[in-house]
């Protein structure tokens, strides 16, 4: 028999709470603007409060608001503990600790180079290369890769019971999952070796290859040489890099890692969420939960209420006359009643559209969480926990 949703008997089956209690890593994903970062922070805060242990939330979102909400001045690559005073201000005594870190792509890349370079001199040459300076920030999937790399690093240090990771809002949702593999492929590619051959050996006549002719005419040989030097240097890190990328890939597939897809009930984000859920299953990742965020209140879907709103609009003058006693000018009241009824009908249209989208969401992961629309912004830990409570209490 399913128990009541209390902590006394342990978390309710099929809840976000239960899912997170059993995992070491939770990765949230979804398209931009769905409230992913806030949901990740709220979930992490809830675990720290209710379940205890050391919980870390890693975000890519440099929003000051999140730092402020967590009672931090700001945070960077190094993890920072959310001060107990922030919890006290929210009126709770957490059973565990909440920590936060932000991903600094550039800094993380620099560390990676320093770790995998054969010697300090090579590391220096790579770090000083003008291409590297550009590339480390803008490499295809560099952000995605480094996010996963940093996650691996933190996880293997073993300081935290749960790590909640907020991923970059990527349109190609698969990028960061495939990033470790692509990175490994990239550096082991025959093509890359072929591209850099003329710069490694004087025996090859550059001009004899049509590709170089074209590339040279388009980009200029100096630039090609810069690229080549950069990759030749980068290849010195090859072995360590590939090994690491593979380890990161294994961690993502581990049963201890779960994925939480966040979406609103708007068409575009939802379609992306569906694509993501499919892809996760396809690649055999552990799909844990779907969080449907910013959902309009259910009463907007109630047919009786809609009928009442219709009557309220149609008979506004009459009704205003009946209730005018003491409330003011009947004409003004009638106008307000019509506006209120209109507003209901407007939002009803949107709520119906959302409900239809919800019904079309054919995929059924173990946990589906519905979070209501919060009409005010979340500014503090209390706000995050209010959101978290709704995530915990949701039955889908």
């Amino acid at each position, binding site marked *: 028999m399913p128990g009541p949703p209390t902590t006394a008997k342990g978390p309710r089956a099929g809840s976000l709470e239960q899912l997170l209690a059993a995992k070491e890593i939770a990765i949230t994903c979804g398209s931009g603007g769905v409230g992913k970062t806030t949901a990740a922070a709220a979930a992490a805060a809830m675990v720290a409060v209710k379940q205890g242990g050391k919980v870390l939330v890693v975000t890519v979102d440099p929003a000051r608001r999140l730092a402020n909400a967590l009672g931090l001045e700001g945070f960077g690559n190094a993890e920072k503990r959310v001060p107990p005073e922030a919890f006290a201000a929210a009126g709770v005594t957490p059973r565990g600790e909440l920590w936060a870190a932000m991903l600094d792509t550039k800094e993380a890349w620099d560390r990676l180079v320093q770790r995998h370079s054969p010697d300090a001199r090579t590391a220096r040459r790579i770090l000083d290369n003008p291409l590297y300076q*550009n590339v480390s920030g803008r490499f295809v999937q560099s952000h995605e890769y480094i996010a996963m790399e940093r996650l691996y690093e933190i996880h293997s240090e073993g300081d935290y019971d749960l790590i909640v990771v907020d991923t970059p809002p990527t349109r190609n949702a698969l990028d960061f999952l495939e990033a470790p593999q692509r990175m490994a492929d990239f550096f082991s590619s025959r093509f890359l070796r072929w591209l850099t051959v003329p710069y490694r050996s004087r025996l090859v006549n550059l001009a004899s290859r049509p590709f170089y002719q074209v590339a040279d005419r388009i980009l200029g040989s100096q630039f090609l040489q810069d690229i080549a030097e*950069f990759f030749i240097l980068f290849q010195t890190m090859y072995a360590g890099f590939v090994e690491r990328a593979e380890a990161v890939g294994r961690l993502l597939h581990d049963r201890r890692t779960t994925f939480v897809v966040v979406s609103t009930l708007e*068409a575009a984000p939802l379609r992306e969420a569906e694509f993501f859920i499919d892809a996760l299953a396809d690649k055999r990742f552990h799909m844990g939960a779907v969080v449907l965020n910013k959902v309009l209140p259910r009463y907007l879907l109630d047919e009786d*209420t809609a009928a009442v709103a219709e009557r309220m609009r149609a008979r506004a003058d009459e009704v205003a006359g009946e209730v005018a006693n003491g409330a003011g000018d009947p004409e003004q009241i009638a106008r307000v009643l019509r506006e209120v009824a209109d507003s*209901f009908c407007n939002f009803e249209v949107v709520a119906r559209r959302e409900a239809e989208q919800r019904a079309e969401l054919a995929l059924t992961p173990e946990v589906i969480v519905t979070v209501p629309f919060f*009409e*005010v912004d979340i500014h503090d830990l209390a706000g995050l926990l209010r959101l978290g409570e709704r995530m915990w209490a949701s039955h889908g």
Partner: protein
Amino acid sequence: MTDLLDRRLVFVTGKGGVGKSTVAAAMALLAAHRGKRTLVCEVDAKGNLADFFETAPTAFRPREIQPRLWAMSMNTEESLREYLNLNLRVPLMGRIGPLAHAFEFVATAAPGVKEILTVGKLCYEVRERHYDLVVVDAAPTGHIVGQLAAPQAINELVQVGLVRQQTGWLLDILSNPTTTGLCIVATPEEMPVNETIELAGRVERETSVDLAAIIVNRVLPELFGRGEEEVFEKLSEPDCVEALSKAVGGDVGPIMAAARLAVTMRRTRAAHLERLRSGVEQSVPMLYVPYLFARSHGLRSTRQLADALGAELGY
């Protein structure tokens, strides 16, 4: 200042989820309606621009989807192919073999190559006067500066070669405010407003492109006129709700709650709007288009948005 639609090239950007593509679609539709031969180009290959016109997916080759309105989606590889064919006058593709593969690597390695092929193709359409106006459903806020600043970046990185020769005329087109403009789409919410203010500053500092307008999407209507909010407050009191319910013949509680939700949303958003207005140069116009309480987002709502945008532009 040049009217928005009298420019030749308008980039539309915005944070994910604010309706960047919808606004770009509406702007293109408006221009076409006003008699301009218009090209709308989707830069993100995984975008859904076609949905807003209820038409088949777009391709690199422009297709007329409405009278005077052509649509295409950017494909940097095709752009390179076209460019090489035009400039090197060699039918390269057959001979070079794995050029696509090679291109992927060069583009990965060389920052700005994909960006310049995107911007280059768009500027080419402008230079050749194939259209009166090119509207670009551009990269989102996080990447737009990289895209717009690519010609400068390439100028600094690449010393010689064809690419270098090309950056000159690209920069001329991009930095001419009567020709080219950038529109940032925002919604009156916290994060989109933050990103818009930040981006406006970066565009000014890091690119030569003129910030033509900020388009505020999904503006909620003011529910109550002067003095009506007090009446609403009064009507929301428990005994009044009871009396109303009796008079209407059904519980009006949820209806009042829905109105309160609308009022609170509007108020929260008004504060963000003020922040946006004061956070961006006063000379940059702000255009407001309404939240559409629509059943779906297809051609019909694109038309509504186009009308609203037209009204804001004084048409």
